[in-house]
């Protein structure tokens, strides 16, 4: 995997977020404070506009740069968490020669662990972790089983969606919705929704046949 993929992924993510304005916005209006869509757009925009400084960097360095950039541009709960994700994932990112689905899965998992640590949260608290934790587990499992990239991607997309749907009936115990009690039930978590969108966009890109040769 090359940095070029990262940049294409960033653009795909940005498009997906822009395309899902209504959904993201209405979710955070329902059980949050209405800024999640704007935060995500700002973050995606910040990454995409780093293209020039990122292209020449290794993936690990690029991921770290992205993390630091998010840390100083995003703000909010999602800002601290996503920045932590990138910074920690960058630390675990494999060298070029060691890059394979499993090493990537482990780096991804390190990012998810950082989110859990920073947010003091786990599964079932109606947060982005309800998407990220199952995805990370699935990713590791399938990579350990040496499944093909397209198959892994497809499975992850399904897992992310399932994780997202699971947030609907949860009472939130972390984040801004934690004050709502029963009233949070029936709404998807906005952070979970954006993680699902991001993961889906990246997996679609990664599993596309053309990319196996391009990157």
């Amino acid at each position, binding site marked *: 995997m090359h940095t070029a993929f990262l940049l294409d992924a960033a653009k795909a993510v940005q498009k997906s977020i822009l395309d899902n304005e209504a959904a993201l916005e209405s979710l955070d*209006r329902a059980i949050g404070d209405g*800024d999640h869509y704007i935060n995500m757009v*700002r973050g995606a925009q910040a990454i995409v506009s780093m293209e020039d400084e990122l292209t020449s960097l290794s993936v690990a360095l690029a991921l770290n740069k992205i993390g630091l950039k998010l*840390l100083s541009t995003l*703000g909010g*709960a999602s800002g601290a968490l996503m920045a932590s994700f990138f910074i920690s994932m960058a630390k675990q990112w494999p060298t070029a020669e060691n890059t394979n689905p499993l090493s990537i899965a482990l780096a991804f998992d390190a990012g998810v662990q950082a989110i859990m640590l920073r947010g003091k949260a786990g599964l079932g608290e109606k947060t982005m972790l309800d998407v990220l934790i199952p995805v990370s587990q699935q990713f590791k499992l399938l990579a350990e089983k040496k499944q093909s990239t397209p198959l892994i991607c497809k499975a992850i997309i399904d897992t992310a969606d399932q994780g997202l749907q699971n947030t609907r009936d949860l009472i*939130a115990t972390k984040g801004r919705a934690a*004050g*709502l009690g029963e009233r949070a039930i029936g709404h998807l978590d906005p952070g979970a929704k954006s993680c699902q969108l991001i993961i889906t966009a990246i997996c679609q890109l990664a599993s596309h046949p053309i990319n196996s040769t391009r990157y």
Partner: protein
Amino acid sequence: MKKFINKLDDVLIESLSGFAQAHADLVNLSLNPHFLSRKKPAANKVALISGGGSGHEPLHAGYIGYGMLDAACPGHVFTSPTPDQMLTAAEHIASDKGVLFIVKNYAGDVMNFEMAAEMLSVENATVYTSDDCAVVNSTYTEGRRGVAGTVIVEKCVGSLAETGASLADCKALGEKVNVRTSSMGVALTSCTVPAAGRPTFAIGDNEIEMGVGIHGEPGRHRVKMQEADAIVNECVKAILADWQQKQLCLKGQPEALLLVNGFGATPLMELYLIYHSAATLLKKHGIAISRSLVGNYTTALDMAGASVSLCLLDDEIKHHWDSPVHTAALRWGC
């Protein structure tokens, strides 16, 4: 959405610039990362730094100055600031007495301030404010939000810090004031985040949201519009129940500070009517209101609504509340 803005991207910076110009005698605005700090930094005192999403003005920049904050870090509207803001502000103003962060208890603020604190080499501590008693189940500490009571914490700790008190003492006073303060808010209308362009929540012409948060987060329940006395009664009851749950001792004739806070679109005339209603009720409950504050002190953009905060006083808190303060939004004694 009709708002006085130019470009959406410039709302924050233009508003901050206006604030800094209008109060050039009090504050300095630093950009990239953004923070506001005292014009004349006080040496040899604990530096008090607060911050949070914008849209709650005059919180926090309006409380920078003698007897209150040393710096404030404004985030985007309703979005917590980023760690580099707090870090830079702290490095800019810290003396060797250390830095005390005063943070409203929201996941975003908590985590971003936490990251700044971890990166900061100067000795530091944090007070989290969590006065909102709208969130019933207080075992979910995450859900207990910091709202208008934050102003009381900032005022009292600000006064203490000015005496050269230690970081630990400042933190202890902040936590004490926070515990002794409970708040409950109600929204008549939603606020509108400029970049979103439409109301955060829909609410009927005859409905109100009891226990709303200062970002328009849903509260306890949605009820029919009622008389002011009935609304205030629910707020006061919630506050007194919260005091009880917090085991605040109410023996003798407890003395309290009553803060009636407007959310941005509620006129002073109505805030004073609420004050009258709350003071009358509290008197019946045997509580003596010996300090008062009425106005827009912790707002939620253009939301119509108000919150009632009650702080159980003692001599120490009274002393620090009364001591001189000179900021854009609170000033007395100098």
